[in-house]
């Protein structure tokens, strides 16, 4: 079980290998990696600000909630902060379980909560200037499917 918040890049393959190294009870390993997207070639800068004292608490709470809801054998959240470039890795989540359904559902849950409940803010600079990325209503709506009784 691990939560890491770091400025440095990470190696998703090595993280996944480490998650099930030396154990034989993991039947399903699911991961998601988020990247800095530049759809039209106008992105010249990207920065992730965060609230360090709250980030660790929020990520641990989200991870604990996932572990309470699904039978996970391992769970990983890695999230970067600081300046990033188009194509750079921003974050990853990985879940390990005996069966795929729990691993997929828990990974989706972690992502939905990270989007709207982890204290990170994205700032993009394009050829038109710099702006803070707006939260999407769809991200907030995605949380509702996980409300108790909803799933």
């Amino acid at each position: 079980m691990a939560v890491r918040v770091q400025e440095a890049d990470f190696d998703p393959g090595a993280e996944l290998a480490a998650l099930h190294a030396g154990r034989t009870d993991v039947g399903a390993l699911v991961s998601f990696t988020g990247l800095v997207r530049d759809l039209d070639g106008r992105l010249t800068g990207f920065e992730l600000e965060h609230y360090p004292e709250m980030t660790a608490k929020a990520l641990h709470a989200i991870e604990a909630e996932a572990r309470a809801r699904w039978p996970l054998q391992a769970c990983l959240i890695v999230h970067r902060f600081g300046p990033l470039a188009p194509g750079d890795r921003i974050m990853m989540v990985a879940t390990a379980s005996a069966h795929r359904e729990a691993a997929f559902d828990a990974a989706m849950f972690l992502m939905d909560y990270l989007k709207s409940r982890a204290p990170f803010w994205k700032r993009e600079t394009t050829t038109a200037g710099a702006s803070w990325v707006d939260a999407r209503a769809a991200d907030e709506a995605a949380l509702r499917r996980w409300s108790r009784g909803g799933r």
Partner: protein
Amino acid sequence: MTLDVLYFAWLRERIGASREAVDTDAATVADLVAELRGREPRYDAAFADMAAVRVAVDQELRDLAAPLAGAREVAFFPPMTGG
């Protein structure tokens, strides 16, 4: 009481500070916001639309009605865009 008040993202930019100590008797977050807005135009402008502002008290998400008794740290920021 003295609170550590933190600002992030565009709130930090509009207020021109990332952290400050505030001496206050505010009972709730809403009271603190009203007090800050009365101080200077930059606070008034930053808190003009509270629907666009989220708040954490001692690193836990709270709403404007949250009491401040015993609190040490209050943070204001826009909706989060992690992931």
